[in-house]
C-alpha cells in the first residue's frame, strides 16, 4: 500500500483536488465494502454503510488528525456504521448467495478446440463456487476476519484491527488459524465422498 502517499492524498483532497479524492476511493472502497460484508450486512445495508462512510470522509477531510492513517479511520468508521445498521434491526445474511446465482457456467462451447478449455473453466468455476460456499459456512469470527482480509488491495493489520476491534497482535495468529480451518474443510470435501458433508465444526 502506498504509505506516505495516502496522507498527501487526504491533504490534496482537502484542498479541493478531485483527482486525489478519486484515488482515495480507488484505494479504500474494497476495504469498506469488505468490512460491511464481514459484518454480514445484506446488499442494501452494506450500500448504506459504504455511502455513509464516504460522505463522512468528505466532510472530515480537513479535520482528520492523522491523514497518513486515513485507512484506519475509514475502517473504524465502517465498523461503527456497520454495527449501527445491524443494531437497527436490519437483516443479516450469510455471504451473498445471489452472487453465486449470477455466475453462469462458462460460455457456450464453440468447436472442439474450445471444449477442453471450457471444461477447464467449468472446473475452475466449480472450485471457486465451492470455496466461496465453504467460506460462508465457516464460523462467524473466521468468516469475518477472512472477508476483511479479502479486500483489494490487501489491508494492513492496523486497518483490520480497527475494522474488527481486535488487538493488533492477534490478527496474524487468528488469520493463520482461520486459513488452516478453511484448508481442512476444502481438503476434507475434495478427498471425502464428494458430498457436501461438513466433518469439522471446530472453532476456537
Amino acid at each position, binding site marked *: 500500500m502506498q504509505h506516505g502517499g495516502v496522507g498527501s492524498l487526504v491533504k490534496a*483532497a482537502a484542498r*479541493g483536488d*478531485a483527482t486525489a*479524492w*478519486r484515488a482515495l*476511493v480507488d484505494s479504500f*472502497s*474494497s476495504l469498506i*465494502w*469488505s468490512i460491511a*460484508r464481514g459484518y454480514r450486512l445484506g*446488499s442494501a445495508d452494506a*450500500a*448504506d*454503510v*459504504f*455511502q*455513509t462512510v*464516504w*460522505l*463522512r*470522509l*468528505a*466532510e*472530515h*477531510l*480537513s*479535520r482528520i488528525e492523522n491523514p497518513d492513517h486515513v485507512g484506519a479511520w475509514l475502517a473504524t468508521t465502517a465498523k*461503527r*456504521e456497520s*454495527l*449501527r*445498521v445491524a*443494531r*437497527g*434491526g*436490519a437483516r443479516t445474511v450469510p*455471504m*451473498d448467495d445471489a*452472487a*453465486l446465482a449470477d*455466475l453462469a457456467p462458462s460460455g457456450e462451447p464453440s468447436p472442439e478446440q474450445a471444449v477442453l478449455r471450457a471444461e477447464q473453466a467449468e472446473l475452475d468455476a466449480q472450485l*471457486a463456487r465451492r*470455496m*466461496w460456499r465453504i*467460506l460462508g459456512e465457516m464460523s462467524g469470527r473466521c468468516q469475518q476476519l*477472512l*472477508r476483511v*482480509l*479479502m*479486500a*483489494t488491495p*490487501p489491508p494492513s493489520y492496523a486497518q483490520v484491527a480497527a475494522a474488527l476491534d481486535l488487538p493488533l497482535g492477534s490478527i496474524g495468529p487468528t*488469520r*493463520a488459524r482461520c*486459513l*488452516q480451518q*478453511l*484448508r481442512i474443510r476444502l481438503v476434507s470435501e475434495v478427498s471425502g465422498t464428494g458430498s457436501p458433508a461438513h466433518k469439522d465444526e471446530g472453532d476456537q
Partner: protein
Amino acid sequence: MPEQGNDDELEQQLRELAARFDPVPPRLLDAAVDSYTWRTVDSDLAELVFDSQAEDQAALVRGGEHARLVSFAAGDLVIDLEITGGGQDRRIIGQLAPPQRAAVEIRQGSDVTGLDTDELGRFGGTLHTGPFSLRCRTGAEPDRTVVTDWIAL
C-alpha cells in the same frame, strides 16, 4: 503450522474470489466519487454526539414504532432529531438549541430540501432511507452555517 507462503497464496485466492463474487457494485463506486461534491468548506461541522440506535441495542427495531433520537453538536449549537416511521419514508422532527430561527436544508441522495424553523427552533420534514445530512444557516450569527455528520437511516 502452515507455511506463511501457503497462507499468502490462499489469501490471494480468496481475494480473487471476493473480487469475482462480491465486488463493490459499480454504482456505489460512482456514488463514492460523487460524495466529494457534498463537501462544504465554509461550514462548521456538527458531529454526531448521541444516537439511540448506537446506544441501545434492545429498544429499537428498524421499521418499529419507536423513535430514533439523534443529536449533533457544533460548539454551543445542538441539533436534536426525532426520527419516526418505517419503510421507505421517515418523518423527522428537529429542534435547535438554543432556540432560534434558521434555514435548514435536508441533504439526501442528490436532493436538497429547504425548510425553515419556527421561532422556537423547531422544524419537521420527511426523509427516505439511506444517508442524509442537515445544513443549517442560523440567524443569530451572521452567515454561520453548520453541517451535520452524515448518518444512514
